[in-house]
């Protein structure tokens, strides 16, 4: 596959007074790809998006769009469509005028503008709301109008700043699917900021995990999920157990009785954290208390398709998720042995 870089974020740093908001961010965004910037609040993800949009200037580094340095271009010259956290629909304009505003500024008026607005309203499946005031729309409708307004100008880049955070869970799920379908339909290169790992996994071709203003890992979602680069990424992507397994000996650690060989070189004596997802921990009932590696179920909850357990073992609590069929006969207080597939355990040097 040949790489076709659309936007190159070239070593960008941002300093606010005495705080480093971003440090040496270097990122190449493929044409037509959907990139999610994911991280906890304060990680710099929104600042990075605002630098791409042109609302903030980088303290260092540059932005290269299709080979041209756009670092000094004001936002209105960049013409990137953006969806804001508050959506920022213009309250004094109707739906049609909101969507048509960017077109008007580009000299597209009259019938041409009306046709394009109608086309977009068709795309967002709200064909009959053109003349409504924005205040008369529901949350999901506003969402779609904000997306249509940003896409109306056929932007080279489509930027979204936590656009779905105000919606309730059900609507958010539907909007994620719709957003992804729209992005593919338009084929527009997209950058979305979110703190929701599930949303990021749903949407992204490329997931960029940020912490404290630096990129911790940038890769396709499944790769990040299965092979997190460090314990922060493993933890932030959720549902992972982080277990302090002590010093490494001969390139292997002992995980509750299962030897796990390290894939990356670690020095003997390094303290190691093992990350393993709840669904990758095996559970077998034991009757006697003879073995040392036996845990006790301290919590269980049937979630329908799966059952979630908390197993207390050697003073630690592990989360385990198994199919509900496997939960038969188990109860709080049951003794269980834990099994691990070494291939699904990631080892990191503890810091």
């Amino acid at each position, binding site marked *: 596959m040949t790489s076709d870089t659309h936007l190159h974020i070239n070593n960008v740093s941002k300093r606010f007074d005495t705080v480093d908001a971003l440090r040496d961010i270097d990122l190449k965004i493929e044409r037509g790809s959907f990139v999610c910037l994911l991280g906890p609040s304060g990680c710099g993800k929104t600042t990075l998006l605002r630098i791409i*949009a*042109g609302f903030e200037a980088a303290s260092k580094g540059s932005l290269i769009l299709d080979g041209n340095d756009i670092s000094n271009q004001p*936002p209105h010259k960049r*013409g990137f*469509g953006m969806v804001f956290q508050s959506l*920022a629909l*213009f309250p004094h304009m109707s739906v049609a*005028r909101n969507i048509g505003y960017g077109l008007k*500024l580009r000299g597209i008026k009259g019938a041409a503008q009306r046709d394009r607005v109608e086309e977009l309203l068709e795309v967002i499946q709200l064909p009959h709301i053109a003349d409504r005031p924005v205040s008369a729309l529901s949350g999901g409708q506003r969402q779609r109008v904000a997306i249509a307004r940003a896409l109306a100008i056929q932007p080279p880049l489509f930027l979204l700043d936590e656009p779905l955070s105000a919606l309730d869970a059900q609507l958010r799920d539907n909007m994620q699917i719709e957003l992804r379908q729209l992005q593919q339909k338009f084929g527009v290169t997209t950058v979305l900021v979110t703190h929701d790992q599930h949303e990021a996994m749903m949407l992204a071709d490329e997931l960029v995990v940020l912490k404290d203003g630096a990129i911790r890992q940038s890769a396709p979602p499944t790769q990040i999920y299965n092979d997190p680069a460090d314990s922060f990424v493993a933890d932030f992507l959720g549902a992972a157990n982080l277990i302090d397994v002590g010093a490494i000996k001969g390139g292997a650690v002992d995980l509750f009785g299962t030897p796990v060989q390290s894939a990356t070189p670690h020095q003997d004596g390094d303290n190691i954290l093992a990350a393993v997802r709840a669904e990758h921990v095996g559970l077998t009932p034991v009757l006697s208390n003879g073995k040392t590696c036996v845990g006790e179920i301290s919590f269980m909850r049937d979630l329908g398709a799966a059952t979630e357990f908390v197993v207390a073992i050697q003073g630690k609590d592990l989360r385990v998720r198994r199919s509900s069929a496997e939960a038969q006969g188990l109860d709080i207080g049951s003794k269980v042995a834990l099994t691990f597939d070494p291939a699904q355990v990631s080892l990191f040097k503890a810091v």
Partner: protein
Amino acid sequence: MSLQLTKPKALAYSLPALIAILPFLGACLYIFRFSISGEQSRIDGFSIQPYVDLMTPFFGRSVWLTLRLAFIATVLAMLMAVPLAFLLISLRSAFARRTLTIVILLPLILNLLVQAYGWILLLGPSGVLNSTLRSFGIIERPIFLLFNETGVLLGLVQTSLPLAVFPIVSAVRGISREHLEAASSLGASHWRIFFDVTVPLLRPGLFGAASIVFAFNASAFAIPLLLGGRRVQMMGIAIRDMISPLFNWSGAAAAGMILIFVTMFVMLFAAWLTRLASEKVERQNAR
């Protein structure tokens, strides 16, 4: 439990304010009654003579002068207040913001007399400006900036400015940064954003501020008296002259009623005009 006041409760708590307003309404009624009195110095019988007597070129000029000066002063005060409001909001340092707020508020705190004498000391015939210009030989006779319409306008703009600034400040605060950024991302330059987004969103606040300033200026009394002298007969002055040297109480009452109604009419007319203008913009944009 609702945290909002229920209507009966709100009404109960508003009672003191309503009672405080009552004497004012009483006074208005009393003045109205006096304005249709058959006698000039007391309320006796009914007559429209007080109003008929006012239909003179002299009083007509006074009404026209009042509306004209109040209107010009309002426009000037608004033109100055808008940038000032933006400046106030853009200030990051709390000290600078507080200092500017106090400077803007000062005219509301200081007695009008003190402010008027300040202008006289500065711009009067033997004031700082004239004596400086004379000492440099730039002028021979003093420039008369006071005791004419210019003086009254200066005074009105200066005293009404704080009334314009603070409603505009709260209106500007109500505009979210994301609205402006959204317009920018769609391709609007700074000026386009100002006219397409900022001004429409500010419009209610601007109109509110202008109404307050206009009403304040139209009913001004101390400033025209002290800075206009007898030559600038705004209605406040005209009404006082009817009371004090002439003892024409019913005429003064009729003139007061006319002042109230003319001011209200202008404000309603302006409100209607603003709505018409914004609807016209809507229609043009829709096309």
